[in-house]
């Protein structure tokens, strides 16, 4: 029947293709819930979910909050702004306090890679990774997969190129794992200084010029380029980035086939992507947002409760 997901969703790297397909298939009926007049089902009634966001993020947090509320769960938002606040209490203490309050699920975003797994190993509650450092952002990867599947019909055999700052991107990593596991052909494109070592060893093609990527791909997933990268000297300027790597109308016109454009948001219009492209007929950026709520509802549904012995086993494996 269905392959269980275990206690937590920390990343896509260690999920099986069947597990990923299960989440995508489960998201379908949840799309329907969001179309109803009464956008609520009682499925997680009485469950307490904490959104623990150590990095500010409006859109991901709101998406999770909608997902939680549409499942009738009770939600609490804990945000930490500024590094001194987030370092004040150790993550271990935060974890133990949450557990002592009998929280059912924690959705966490944290600036350190590995933080989601760290938390998951130490508390019995379900932990959902909403982004840990530059490691993974699994629900984003999943909603990207769902969106591609909606339009293209299947992931297997589809050529997807992820464009931008791959080195610092957790979205890129989650996308790479999910796409490879479902049989897509995966490529990355960006300046060499923003490509991580060993990326080719993962089974990913590397394009150094966006024109080559556009010739090859069926789907472009365009990542946001952050101003900090320029300041840290990885690229000389945002302007040059747009001139050399930007997904522009002119470049897309030379694409040999219908291109699908994804972007995790928020967009830097005029840097990595032109406005006309973002708002154009090939863009599915808004559909990604809609799918985001459905995917998150599916993940919460699949992880929540049902197996008390799972929670016990997970707790036994954690630190003393």
């Amino acid at each position, binding site marked *: 029947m269905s392959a269980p997901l275990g206690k937590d969703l920390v990343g896509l*790297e260690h999920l099986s293709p069947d597990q990923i397909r299960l989440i995508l298939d489960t998201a379908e009926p949840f799309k329907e819930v969001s179309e109803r007049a009464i956008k609520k089902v009682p499925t997680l009634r009485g469950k307490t979910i904490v959104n623990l966001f150590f990095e500010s993020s409006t859109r991901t947090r709101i998406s999770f909050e909608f997902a939680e509320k549409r499942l009738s769960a009770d939600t609490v938002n804990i945000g930490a702004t500024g590094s001194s606040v987030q*370092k004040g209490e*150790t*993550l*271990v203490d935060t974890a133990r306090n949450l557990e002592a309050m009998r929280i059912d699920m924690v959705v966490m975003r*944290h*600036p*350190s*890679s*590995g*933080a989601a*797994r*760290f938390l998951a190993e130490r508390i019995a509650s379900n932990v959902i990774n909403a982004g*840990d*450092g*530059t*490691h*993974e952002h699994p629900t984003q990867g999943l909603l990207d997969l769902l969106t591609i599947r909606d339009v293209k019909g299947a992931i297997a055999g589809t050529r997807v190129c992820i464009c931008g700052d791959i080195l610092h991107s*957790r979205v890129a*990593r989650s996308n790479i794992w999910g796409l490879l596991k479902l049989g897509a052909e995966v490529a990355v494109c960006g300046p060499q200084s923003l490509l*991580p*070592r*060993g*990326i080719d*060893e*993962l089974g990913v093609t590397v394009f150094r010029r966006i024109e080559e990527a556009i010739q090859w791909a069926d789907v472009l997933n365009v990542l946001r380029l952050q101003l900090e990268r320029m300041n840290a000297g990885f690229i000389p300027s945002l302007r040059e980035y747009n001139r050399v790597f930007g997904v522009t109308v002119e470049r897309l016109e030379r694409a040999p086939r219908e291109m699908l454009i994804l972007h995790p948001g928020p967009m830097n219009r005029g840097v990595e992507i032109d406005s006309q492209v973002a708002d154009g007929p090939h863009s599915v950026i808004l559909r990604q947002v809609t799918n985001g709520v459905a995917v998150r509802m599916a993940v919460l549904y699949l992880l929540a409760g049902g197996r008390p012995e799972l929670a016990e086993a997970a707790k036994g494996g954690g*630190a003393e």
Partner: protein
Amino acid sequence: MKPLLLRGGRVIDPSRDLDDTADLLIQDGQVKAVGRGLGLPNGGEAMDVTGLVVAPGLVDVHTHLREPGQEDRETIASGAAAAAAGGFTAVCAMPNTDPPIDNQSAVGFVVKQGAAAAGARVYPIGAVSLGQKGEHLAEFGELVGAGAVAVSDDGRPVASGHLMRTALEYARTFGIPVADHCEEPSLAAGGVMHEGLVATRLGLKGIPAAAEEIMVARDILLAGHTGGHVHLCHMSTRGSVELIRRAKDRHLPVTAEACPHHFALTHDACEGYNTNAKMNPPLREREDVEAIRAGLKDGTIDAIATDHAPHHYDAKEREFDDAPFGIVGLETALGLGLTVLVEGGVLPLAQLIARMSTVPARTFGLTGGSLAPGRPADVLVFDPSAAWTVDPRRFRSKSRNTPFAGWELKGRVVRTIVGGRTVFHSGSGEGGVVRP
């Protein structure tokens, strides 16, 4: 102190190319005689060491004993005891304490605490620069006069080429080595593990091999230019080994050390964000490990040192980015050397002992590394075939941060003797208290 006769062991003394079954007599704090059928003087103790190895006590030229300033992780006393339990009769204590050991009173403090600890001998290493800030030279003369055996800013590199050059020249006056932690700061900044495929998958910032190799090359060139003795700390990459090999071909005043974790583990140990696999320089790739082993075999790497770096449980119980670098090593070094290098067919036993005792002692001009009659009796007795499992809760060190917990190792310390006095004996107390 009663005379002590160690009877019937396999005596290995690399300082005299000796590897034979013999008795060893210790009297008045010295090695009195080595030979067959030695008689036991009146009132002496005889110990039957058939099947065991009798060797010069191990000498570790790179440890962090954390005192003054960080006594929650280790003190000179607990470090000296841990060293003795690990078979070491002498250790050198790096100066990156709080405050750092950059003046003669601080050096004197370490000497005094070491003497009071009555474990392994503790030799202070003084700082290269005041405060280890990398700006002004410390007073090497005063440091050496108070007992320092070398200078280092370890923890950090000597980033300035000018300062390193001056340090090497000035150190020549006192005949001491300058031990450098080779790391180019701008390349390594923010990195937490080796830059490679594992770091990419874990989403962690990497430290490229080139960060070490650039400074190794620089230090070799400066040693050649100044004639000063540079000692390269904790080498980890195949590029570094290659550079050192060519330097030695040209007979430059360069020595090097490598740590057990760099011949036993690769960056795969970081999987699961294991903070006990986080150290600097980081664990590298399979080919680097092979190169370190080959370097130990052909003498490119002179010595095995532990870089024993105690950290508190709380400190390592953190996200990988935030956890401090370093692992303890005094109590696992011999076992790892025997299991990975000797059992693994990389080094014969006598050469392992040379790398862990005779050579480091000679490199830094320390007591130890020899069982020649007349020398101070710094002796190690160990059982080369005893199997044991690493259990950090049994460590003498105050800290437990090791990636080797649960490893099955071969080779166990039976007795450690410093200046004729037994500082560790596995019969008593070793199997006793298990601390949480």
